[in-house]
């Protein structure tokens, strides 16, 4: 459904952020781009909704090249959520969520219904949150509103850039679980960027491990564990596995650690 073909991005400074990267994402799939900072994962994400224009290569969504599409219209069909959230501080929660529908000229009653539907979807009670201002919300609540806003125009694709990066572990876990539930309900196609290995493994149908603008390995979490393609990938997974084992041992002191 989303298809990146030999896509490159070279910044005017000469730095190559994305290097002949190819990736196919199926409808309804969650693909996680995993890598340390500077590996080109955020740039790859932004190429898809044309916040960044590629230097070479093509990007197709449902067979249509994004370069031929109006970027504004494209972005309205693709949800975009990032760590900074960026809610409009001067507008109520309802106005934030309804921003794009009202630009699309929807009727007020339709917008209202859509806002309530989305707030419920992200786990916020419409009656008590609709009229609040962003600064009255916690970080987790703000990111829920951010997700609701991104989906408002009935987007079926969601691009998420470290969406849970700034949240405390409990909130992060809750939101991750809700994301999985929401994705099943709405059949969303999700491309998520993170540097958190556990998050990647827990959320992804497939993980793409990136370094220096290229994909080191693409596969399901199980495939990655079973046969890491490079020593970097192996090291990345090893840390996560060790943590999991130690936590398991602590949680079940009776069992043998082997």
């Amino acid at each position, binding site marked *: 459904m989303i298809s990146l073909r030999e896509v490159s991005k070279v910044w005017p400074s000469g730095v190559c952020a994305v290097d002949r990267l190819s990736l196919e994402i199926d409808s309804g799939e969650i693909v996680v781009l995993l890598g340390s900072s500077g590996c080109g994962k955020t740039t790859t994400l932004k190429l898809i909704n044309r*916040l960044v224009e590629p230097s070479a290569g093509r990007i197709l969504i449902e067979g249509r090249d994004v370069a031929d599409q109006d970027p504004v219209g494209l972005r309205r069909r693709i949800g975009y959520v990032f760590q900074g959230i960026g809610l409009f501080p001067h507008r109520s929660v309802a106005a934030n969520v309804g921003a794009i529908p009202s*630009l699309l000229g929807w009727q007020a009653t339709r917008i209202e219904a859509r806002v309530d539907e989305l707030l419920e979807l992200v786990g916020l009670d419409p009656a008590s949150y609709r009229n609040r201002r962003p600064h009255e919300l916690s970080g987790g609540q703000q990111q829920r509103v951010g997700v609701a806003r991104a989906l408002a125009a009935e987007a079926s694709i969601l691009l998420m850039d470290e969406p849970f990066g700034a949240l405390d572990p409990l909130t992060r876990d809750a939101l991750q679980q809700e994301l999985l539930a929401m994705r099943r309900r709405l059949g969303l196609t999700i491309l998520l960027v993170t540097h958190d290995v556990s998050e990647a493994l827990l959320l992804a149908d497939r993980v793409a491990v990136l370094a220096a603008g290229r994909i080191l390995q693409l596969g399901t979490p199980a495939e990655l564990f079973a046969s890491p393609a490079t020593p970097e990938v192996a090291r990345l997974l090893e840390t996560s596995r060790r943590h999991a084992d130690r936590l398991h041992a602590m949680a079940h002191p009776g069992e043998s650690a082997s």
Partner: protein
Amino acid sequence: MSWLELQEPLAHLPDYLSSHFLLTVAALTVGATISLPLAALVIQVRRLAGPVLAVASVIQTIPGLALLALMVPLLGRIGVVPALLALILYSVLPILRNTVTGALEVDRDVIEAARGIGMTEGQILRQVRFPLASPVIVAGLRTAAVWTVGTATLSTPVGATSLGNYIFSGLQTQNMSAVLLGCVAAAALAISLDGLIRLAETAARRRDPRRALFVGAVLLTALGFAVRVQMGPARAGESSVVLGAKTFTEQYILSRLMSNRLEAAGQRVEVRDSLGSTVVFNALASGEIDAYVDYAGTIWANHMKRTNAPGRTRVLSELASWLDQTHGILLLGPLGFENAYALAMRADRADALGIRSLEDLAPRTPELEVGGDYEFFARPEWRAVRDRYGFRFARQRTFDSTLMYGAVVSGHVDVISAFSSDGRIEAFDLRVLSDPLGVFPPYDAVLLLSPEARKREALLEALRPLVDGIDDDAMRRANKMVDVDKRTIGQAAVALDDEIRSAADDDPT
């Protein structure tokens, strides 16, 4: 400070204040209307930001008085239009700069989100950048309001009535109460406008209809009053006489005197005072004012560019035909006194140095300092006198004419440019140095009428008695009343008029 000193100026307050208020509000409205779209353009096309802000800053560095004065030749007219244009230019920078800065400094995450969810650049500007920058934009508007109120006081010399009329005429006539009144009124206006804008901003931010209504009501009432005061006396079909006056005591007295006479003859009169010397002449030629008093030598040297001085009779007759032929201006006649540019020094100092004439002065100039008013050293007469007598003064200093007399009395300068009809010459015991080579042209006061006004018989009728009606002594006494005895312009004008009438009764020819 006496009550009398304030009473006369206070009568002008509604006129000056309302004109000042309208000028300011109009300039701010147009300024904001220009600045906001310009800011929007600059934000969209970022590379324009540098040049546009630089141009606005350069305009801001032009001194207010100069900017206003430049508008007169640029637009070829005096009055509200050049004043308004200069004030608009002045108000643009603070609004533009704050709008651009505020809009560009909006949280980057908010802008990225707006773009990411599919807002166009225009929508981001209108729905995100401008609303979030509004406190900074309003701060710019408030700065502009305060600056514009202040700068508007400088529109007086280009012929637009403002609170500056108090300040300019007050400084010239040493009426400090009038100066203070002008300053206090301008400050009060600035504070009120600033408060009103702040209140409007609060109302908009809190979506408070009661506050908004209050601001609207205050503004509309003030505008209504101001427009009524400005339009009030103008009744349909009635034409008025506009008199001009330059920026010194004698001119204020003469314009008041003419105004009184014309009003007594049933005319409606407006006085544009404190006008610059060339501004007033050009305004007469273009018919923006109907009459004023100028001095033969001034036009001879400055407008006709003549450097010789062929004697009073020839100067006056050549002057009259030149004015008539080149500008259609009528020289109604000389008033009977002369206000010559001359050089003067303290009598005791002149005696000590043995100086009675400019010839005596010349060899002593390397050890003496000379002071002049704003115009003097730029005038052709000064260059002619300097070159003919061979002056080489040790130092040359420019003063406000009011302060210039103080400077020569206290010995800060030795020689000053003086007006021969000035009451302060006698009061401060100064000696006017004679001009044996006849370099200075005669400076007979002449009454001039615009091409339009010369056709109005009633006007000629009312002003004709002034021709040859005021001798040197009468004029000097009237000037002294104001400059030395601290009487008001109105009192001096009435006293001078009484003298003219009694002289006419004594001499019924």
